[in-house]
């Protein structure tokens, strides 16, 4: 993997535009990972410099966190194991797609939702959030999710599929309408607020 890794607090003499313009000619062939150092690093600049799709923005305050980032994650980051990652979802009857968070380009044809994801790195966990409206409170078919990607080691295209039964979950939460995993709830709120700001 051809990568440039930037480590800085991001408070530069030059404007973000100048720095972003300087890396532009290389973006097609060279990835950029931006690591924000310090508690109040310049998120705005670092976010723009981390390349879309293949690059990553990481945050490492200081001290042990920074040491661990290098020791455990950096090698993984320099080498993606899956590229051209695409998520496909068959939307069951009774659900209506509204918004997706954490994906790049979205396509909807009939009841088929597809979107591109960033490259996958070793040991990385990537959450994607998709919001649906429930029509008539009814969705009894399972929701099918599959991931198609280009395996960087074998050079082959591969697919993984998983499903979830919505009706079971609906029953389980019917007595407690706000039942939602706390971490999922937090992620959704943050994603929602950011989306409103843009």
């Amino acid at each position: 993997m051809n990568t440039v890794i930037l480590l800085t607090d991001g408070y530069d003499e030059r404007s973000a535009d100048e720095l972003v313009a300087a890396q532009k000619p290389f973006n097609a062939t060279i990835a950029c990972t931006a690591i924000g150092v310090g508690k109040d690093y310049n998120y705005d600049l670092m976010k723009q410099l981390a390349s879309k799709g293949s690059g990553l923005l990481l945050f490492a305050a200081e001290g042990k966190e920074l040491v661990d980032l290098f020791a455990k994650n950096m090698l993984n980051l320099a080498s993606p194991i899956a590229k051209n990652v695409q998520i496909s979802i068959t939307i069951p009857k009774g659900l209506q797609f509204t918004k997706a968070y954490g994906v790049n380009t979205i396509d909807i044809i009939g009841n088929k939702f597809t979107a591109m994801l960033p490259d996958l790195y070793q040991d990385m966990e990537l959450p994607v959030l998709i919001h649906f409206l429930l029509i008539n409170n009814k969705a009894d078919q399972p929701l099918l999710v599959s991931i198609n990607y280009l395996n960087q080691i074998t050079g082959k295209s591969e697919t993984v599929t998983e499903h979830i039964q919505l009706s079971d979950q609906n029953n389980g939460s019917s007595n407690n309408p706000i039942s939602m995993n706390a971490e999922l709830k937090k992620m959704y709120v943050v994603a929602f607020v950011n989306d409103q700001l843009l």
Partner: protein
Amino acid sequence: VGDVNIKPIANIEVTLQEQSTQQQMKARTNSNGKVDFIITKGKNWAIFIDGYKYEQEVIERDDEASSTLSLYLTHNPALNERMKKQTFARADLKLKIIDQSDLSAGETKPGHFEIEIKVTNSAGRLQTEKEVHVLCLDNKTMYVSFTNDKGVAIFQLPTRQFYDIDVEEQLNASFINNDLPNGYTFYKTLVYDTYDMDEQDLQDTITQKIRLPLIKKNSRAPYDLIMKRSDGSKCSNEPVYLNEVNSKKVYMAITDSNGKALFILPFGKKYLVNFNFQKDVDVLNLTNARGSAAGSLTITYQPNPALEFPEKFIPTPATLLLTDFSYYHTTPYPPRQNPGLPDIFLRTGSPTNKKEIVLETGISALHLPSGKRLPLNVSFVLDKSGSMAGYDRIESLKEGFEKLINQLLPDDRISIFLFDDDMQLLFPSSKIGDRKKAIIELIRSIEPNGGTSMLKAMQAAYAEVKNTICPRL
């Protein structure tokens, strides 16, 4: 090159080594102890005398102008080795304290020697009631006593140990080697005097009233900070703050009519320079300073308009963005069902009412057995500006970097660029091979200072990766 008695040393080997390319120049001193070098390339050259690195000085070559530099270097390898053992940390050492202030001269205990430490000021006057500490780092023990009316503090110490001596705030004022025999009494005279000033500490903000003309003492380092405006004019009546790194202490002074602020700083610390409207401007490094150390730094004040006129910088929505939601994913997804393949974890929840559903698709990537990954072609661009000196940032960065280098494979290709106001190629693009040790040495040599300008280093890093690009990766 001279010895401790300022006697020239003839025919001794002097080596200059460029810090990033590792290129070397060697020559021997003549009968006057002198050696000449002409430096036509490279940037930072470290000096070695007879194989010993001369820590106090690095020669910096200017690309634009030619110049002549004369250096007088004292070669004392034994002293260098002994000083390297000293530390300025005191609070974290967890020392056992042994009070010897009631001790009077007399019989020594078996296995001990006696030492009488006389403290005078630079005019030779005896100093009474000064607190003297003798530290044994190996045994984590600190012996405490006070100078009596003859200016003498008496200690009885176990033999075969190395000791460092502090007189009040002058840390590592001297040392004792481990070769003193037991049963004898030894004498040592130390010069200690404090600056003629009043120091006020108000909730960790320290202001100093220094009486001029300044007379140099050995207990602390005087440091001049000269502030200029970007048009070159003097910057008077501006506050300068020096934040002691890893402490809450802040030294504060106001620049005089020449734009100068004078500080009298304790040794063994780093200080981050801050102005009213410019933060973490640069760093003053007195970590290894002792005795006659002094310094001066000229800084151009570039007030940050966002700090100076906050009312003109109303945040735009983009600057109010929270960190990406994925940052809040902290609980790992359940173990993989398909080992060796990317896996999907699904869960749903309803954020407000039963009329909406959020589907979380957690994708976890497979873990590769080590050695199976493709080789890397990576260029690192590291910020070594003064602002990186605070909060252990550069130390953590170095430590982490070392661990990373140790995990690399011989076929991995890396390069390392540093930047402050300017950029420096620390390690040109090459395969790791068997050079791990050399790269780690280079990383250890990084010292933060200067401003922040990433552009040149970033461009050079991209060019370096592009030159060696591997299209398959």
